[in-house]
């Protein structure tokens, strides 16, 4: 006989209660893990998108809010507010290596919204290192044709030679991009002048992505651009920070809600163990008569509680990871994530996993303290009086 064996037998005595209490812990932990995982995956995806933007600076109209800044990354529709004349000015600023304009519009294709991005074909090809999976790229800077991202092509079963209608204007699809793993997969690209004329926003673009010649000069270049043109300039790092702060707030809030669930589960443990102490009073008396110390009783109940934390934690992490993969796409279904090429892949690193277990175990042990104290406090005679 030893302590773990005694505790194990006690744990499994009331199978129903054991399962329900454990279920509470597991579900609480699972929700926590799911949201944590999704949050981390989202975070990673955002970083990747910012990186794939390939720009050091993003030139936007003045007064954009964070949501519009996010749209730069997602390819959402944006107001057309920067005149082409500004684009030329920016290109002339010393220290600017490339300045590439984007015009983000949206069209309905077979009743599904599809981003239409007006671009400079060759500049884009150089900046994004695009490769074609099928067909060809634009021959001309104003060729009235469409190159579609791989996910769009797949979703609508498109291939070169098919037609794409934008605002009543029929454009031929000439190429399909190779998968990039970014938002480019879910957009369709048309030379900038063509989009401008279809949407009747001649001479206007949504934003300009700028690469600088010398990274150390980013701030100086940013200032110079703002002197030359009436625009706002945000660095990729600022962009990342502001997006992460929004998404971070949301995921922190979700995790806080999940943490409440974990806390409730901890109270479930307290409840179950207090009931057990009450039910086993007579046995506690017998144990003391046979020679158990108070410390042993305390340890036994604490260990019982700890096992709830251990099993609940393991189960919770497993269910939570599963949940993140299965439900992640629905849970994160919002304007931002929907426009990511794919749902963020849930990600959980070892350290976070360890912390999660520590949380589960720590809470369970804390939950066990009071019941264990109550058990250890019983005097043998008190305990024995209840048959």
């Amino acid at each position, binding site marked *: *006989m030893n302590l773990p064996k005694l505790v194990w037998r006690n744990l499994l*005595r009331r199978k129903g209660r054991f399962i329900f209490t454990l279920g509470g812990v597991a579900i609480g932990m699972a929700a926590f893990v799911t949201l944590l995982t999704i949050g981390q995956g989202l975070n990673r995806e955002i970083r990747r998108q910012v990186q794939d933007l390939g720009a050091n600076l993003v030139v936007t109209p003045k007064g954009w809010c964070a949501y519009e800044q996010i749209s730069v990354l997602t390819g959402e529709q944006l107001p057309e507010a920067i005149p082409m004349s500004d684009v030329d000015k920016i290109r002339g600023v010393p220290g600017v290596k490339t300045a590439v304009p984007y015009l983000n519009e949206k069209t309905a294709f077979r009743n599904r919204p599809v981003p239409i991005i007006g671009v400079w074909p060759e500049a884009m090809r150089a900046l994004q290192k695009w490769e074609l999976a099928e067909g060809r790229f634009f021959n001309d800077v104003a060729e009235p044709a469409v190159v579609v991202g791989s996910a769009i092509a797949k979703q609508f079963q498109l291939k070169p030679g098919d037609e794409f209608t934008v605002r009543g204007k029929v454009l031929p699809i000439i190429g399909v991009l190779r998968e990039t793993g970014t938002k480019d997969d879910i957009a369709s690209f048309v030379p900038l002048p063509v989009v401008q004329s279809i949407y009747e926003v001649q001479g206007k673009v949504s934003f300009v992505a700028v690469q600088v010649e010398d990274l150390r000069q980013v701030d100086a270049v940013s200032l110079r651009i703002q002197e030359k043109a009436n625009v706002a300039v945000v660095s990729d790092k600022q962009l990342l920070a502001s997006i992460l702060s929004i998404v971070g707030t949301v995921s922190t809030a979700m995790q806080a809600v999940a943490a409440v669930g974990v806390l409730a589960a901890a109270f479930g443990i307290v409840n179950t163990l207090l009931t057990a102490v009450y039910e086993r009073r007579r046995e506690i008396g017998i144990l*003391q008569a*046979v020679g158990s110390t108070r410390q042993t009783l305390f340890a036994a109940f604490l260990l019982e509680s700890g096992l709830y934390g251990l099993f609940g934690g393991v189960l919770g992490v497993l269910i939570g990871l599963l949940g993140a993969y299965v439900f992640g796409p629905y849970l994160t279904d919002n304007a931002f994530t929907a426009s990511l090429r794919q749902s963020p892949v849930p990600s959980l690193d070892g350290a976070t996993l360890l912390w999660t277990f520590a949380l589960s175990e720590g809470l369970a042990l804390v939950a066990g303290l009071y019941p264990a104290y109550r058990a250890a406090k019983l005097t043998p005679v008190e305990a*024995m009086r209840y048959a």
Partner: protein
Amino acid sequence: MPEALIRVENVTKVYGSGAASAAALSGVCLQVERGSWLAIMGPSGHGKSTLLQIMGGLDRPTSGQVHLDDMELSNLGPAKLARTRARAIGFVFQFFNLLPHLTALENIELALWFGGKRSDEGRARAITLLDSVGLADKAHLPPGALSGGQQQRVAVARALANEPEILLMDEPTGNLDSTSEADLLKLLGSLHEHGRTIVMVTHNLAVAEHAQRVVHVKDGRIERDRFSGD
């Protein structure tokens, strides 16, 4: 004069406080000789169990002293007292002696664990003990699958696990039919023959007759003390 194993000196026990207080024991003096078999009798509610519990270090007297060998039980801290209960004292109660979720064998192993035995030694000894009370074949049954008499025998085996100085029993036959009672008394008789000190509370005169000495407790006092053959 045989040497006293237990000396109860002027023990009082008062439950509750103030107006609600009631004395369960008032000035009890009692010596139990090593190797003797003592029965405690008396009307219900007059302090028999209280006396037994105080003798066994399960409860502390309000005043007075209890000596077990050269130890003064009321001076021991909780941990020492627990160890004394584990090693020097064996308890058997009227009912619900065994932990219901452990097998007969494990119930005995439990006592050996508290007595400080390693679990492999414990198991071997537990099997021997079960065998000595004639229940080797029931080792892996839970108490619920045993008869009342069998449960009491397991309880006795468990009480003996750590070779205690003394066996303290509170109405051990109170719950048994006459056959089981006879079996248990036979077992106690052989323990007595082997020199074990036994103190048992009983309401049954016929059971008390098996002891060498009968003490009557009334109103928290020792009223009559009779040695067999007196």
